[in-house]
């Protein structure tokens, strides 16, 4: 398989997209950007490569009868194996912290508590990755964090284990775990996943047949994936191991990606973690004008993150909750921190969480409307991208504001994979480079320690 790679190193998440010769997406990867952009880029790309191999796998098992079931089972088992590897790494890290001399006085209290917490997390892991597991996040930090927190609450309540100290161990350890690349190859993990699938299936099951599985796994892992060209973009693009020619501005990439997803697009609004970009593109997807927030990032994704923290909610819960509002409370503060204060004040006054959240959503979308206006306004098809477009209240409010300001004629697009728009645009630029005969030199990615 020959492909090109686009990587979007955002302030919150890092995304990678693999495109084949026809411009079809064959793999996508996403990870949190952490404090180490190099690792984030390597992880996102590795994940995209794995996704591409799963695409190959899907092709290989076609015609095996329950093909899709088998692919799904293997994917779940694969994710579970990956998670268990990381949990084991987390355990090693925590035990190493406990072994430090200055932990001596706490060791006897902490060691059994931590061991029980991690054992529980391991036991519960298969449930997380089963089809109906309902994972709230795809990031190890979040999944392991939730499991660890639940375990810590339990041992603290039952045995009086020192809760803060137990959590502090996790906070320290996770930083090291997530900035370290795991050494296991795709082939190792897939073989282990296949073994797990075999073990859980009945013996008469054709698809889980040892011979069939082995053949499929060997075929898929043996097929070379040739990455012809890379283009990097996003906030951290300068830190990516890419040559200068292979770096594109995220403005161009988002415009290009959105136009590729929706060719009628003339205006793009991208709201990411710390950037809001209003971009105008022409009929070929070329950017003609843009505006970005400057000096202040209120109104971006982090604003919602902050509000979620204030309310003790998950980020993904904000939108659905706000949709239940009966009215929209007017929020005046444009500063994120002040908006947090306003939120607490209004809660204290007895206003409902839902109504206040509706107001907060409106406040951030109003800021976007100002950028849109400054970039040249809306006159045609409009595409909303970035992490914030996953928030249903944000899209709803945006739709209302667009209608109020520009009438009912504007089509508004959102795409379920819009978080990958920038990486997609970058991959399209990489494809241009290949076609123009100037493939970028392959970058050196961070590698797992031996």
């Amino acid at each position, binding site marked *: 398989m020959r492909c090109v790679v686009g990587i979007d190193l955002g302030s919150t998440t890092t995304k990678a997209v693999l495109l084949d010769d026809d411009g079809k997406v064959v793999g996508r990867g996403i990870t949190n950007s952490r404090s180490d952009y190099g690792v984030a880029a390597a992880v996102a790309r590795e994940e995209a490569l794995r996704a591409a191999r799963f695409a190959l796998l899907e092709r290989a098992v076609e015609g095996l009868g329950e093909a899709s079931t088998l692919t799904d089972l293997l994917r779940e088992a694969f994710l579970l194996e990956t998670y268990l590897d990381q949990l084991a790494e987390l355990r090693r890290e925590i035990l190493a912290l406990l072994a430090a001399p200055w932990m001596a006085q706490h060791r006897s209290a902490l060691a059994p508590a931590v061991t029980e917490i991690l054992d529980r997390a391991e036991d519960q892991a298969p449930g997380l990755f089963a089809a109906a597991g309902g994972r709230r996040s795809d990031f190890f930090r979040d999944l392991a964090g939730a499991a660890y927190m639940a375990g810590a609450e339990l041992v603290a309540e039952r045995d009086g284990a020192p809760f803060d100290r137990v959590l502090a161990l996790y906070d320290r350890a996770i930083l090291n775990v997530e900035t370290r690349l795991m050494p296991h190859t795709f082939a190792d993990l897939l073989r282990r996943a296949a073994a797990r699938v075999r073990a859980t299936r009945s013996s008469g099951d054709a698809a889980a047949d040892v011979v069939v599985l082995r053949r499929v796994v060997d075929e898929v892992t043996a097929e070379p994936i040739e990455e012809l060209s890379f283009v990097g973009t996003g906030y951290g693009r300068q830190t990516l191991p890419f040559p200068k020619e292979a770096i594109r501005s995220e403005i161009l990439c988002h415009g290009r990606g959105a136009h590729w997803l929706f060719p009628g697009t003339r205006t793009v609004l991208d709201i990411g973690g710390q950037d809001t970009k209003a971009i105008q593109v022409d*009929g070929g997807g070329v*950017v003609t004008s843009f505006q970005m927030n400057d*000096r202040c990032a209120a109104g971006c994704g982090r604003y919602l993150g902050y509000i979620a923290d204030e309310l003790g909610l998950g980020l993904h819960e904000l939108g659905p909750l706000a949709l239940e509002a009966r009215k929209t409370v007017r929020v005046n503060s444009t500063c994120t921190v002040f908006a947090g204060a306003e939120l607490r004040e209004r809660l204290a006054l007895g206003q409902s969480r839902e109504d206040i959240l509706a107001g907060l959503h409106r406040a951030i979308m109003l800021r976007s409307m100002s950028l849109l206006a400054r970039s040249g306004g809306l006159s045609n098809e409009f595409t909303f991208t970035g992490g914030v477009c996953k928030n249903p209240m944000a899209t709803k409010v945006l739709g209302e504001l667009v209608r109020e300001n520009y009438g009912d004629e504007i089509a508004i697009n959102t795409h379920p994979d819009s978080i990958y728009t920038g990486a997609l645009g970058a991959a399209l630029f990489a494809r241009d480079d290949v*076609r123009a005969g100037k493939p970028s030199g392959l970058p050196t990615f961070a590698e797992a320690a031996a």
Partner: protein
Amino acid sequence: MSLQTVKNPHPPGPPLPKGEGGARRPPPAAKDASQERQKRMIAEHFQRLERAREEGRKVVYTFVPGNLTEIVGALGMLPVLPEINALQSGMRKKSAGYIAEAEKAGHSEDVCTYVKCDLGMLRSGNVGPTGTRLPEPDLLLLSYTGCFTFMKWFELLRQEYHCPVAMLHVPYQAEGKISPEMRQYVVDQLRDKVIPMMEGIAGRKLDLGELSRRLELSRRAEDDLVAVWESARHRPSPIDGYFGGVYYIGPIFSAFRGTEDAAAYYRELRQEVEARVARGEGPMTPDGPLAEERFRLVVEGPPNWTHFNDFWRMFSRESAVVVASTYTRVGGLYDTGFRHDGERPLESLAEYCLGCYTNLSLPARIDLLQRYVETYQADGFLINSVKSCNSFSAGQLIMLRELEKRTGVAGGFIESDLVDPRYFGKANIENRLQSFLQMLAARRERSYA
């Protein structure tokens, strides 16, 4: 507005790679003669200021746009330009402290940072760019040419120095042209109010012959400066008309218009630029000569002074050269034909004041930018909008859209500040600028495959 004592406008950068195109950068010692001359002129001016009190010379504080340097000089007085002191403080990394000092005195965060920097400098001992204490003013010569902050600025200085203010009110060019009545109004003020007041301070009558002589020297310098600006028609342009340009406006926008020194400086500069054209050389950058010209830009708005070289490198490292800028016209607009004229001393001074870029209306500014985009065949134009300037930042987006419409050339918009380092977000500005330049490159190819 221009520069006085910049250490080295073209500091040595890393050597260029040997090999193809491999002329190595000349050693740092090979500094242009005009640079050395400017440096000497500035040093001497500040020495004169330092001795002003003991020598009994009078000192006039005044502004760059609408300055009356030939009159000041003909009366034997010395000018001090607070705007230039402020931008110098920005470049010397002193402005943050001065601004904090002014804020302590109660000036709000949103006040023009030139004003706050100047007031802070005053409160910190009034030590000028060369490290010596500046003499206090005997007169505040306030020529009002479109920036309404100027009036408040000198009102504040008057409270500090308890000295008289001579105000020249220059009518705004609302209709985009100078009418005979407007010119007469300024001439009348000069003749009846401003010059008599200056004579009173100087203790002598203005020698009109001397004034005319100085105005002729101005004209000569102006001719040569215009030739320098127009050299940017060449490809590659031998000059950067913004970052390099602020060095070129140094003498003529400050204490030297109408002097032999300035005339000699501009003659020398013009010859150097012509020699660069003959050799097919691009402009100098902080890292040596620009090897390749990928983007030709027109820029509106002043540069940021606190990160001047960083800002410049954001352009030069992307092989972007500024072929014309409006900022380098704030102290006098000469490339539309105006010249000081010894035969019509007061009339030409009036026309000078009326024609400063700061005194132009929004449509006239758009016309000028359009002319620059077309004359210098720019690939794009860029607005650096100043956060703390409530006078000239207004309407800049209208200018941008209108210019895009008229020229078909793409516009970009970045925001920073004059001398408040808090408003220079390097990553943000760089991101926008790179996006803008990549957009120009993409538009050049028109559409993707």
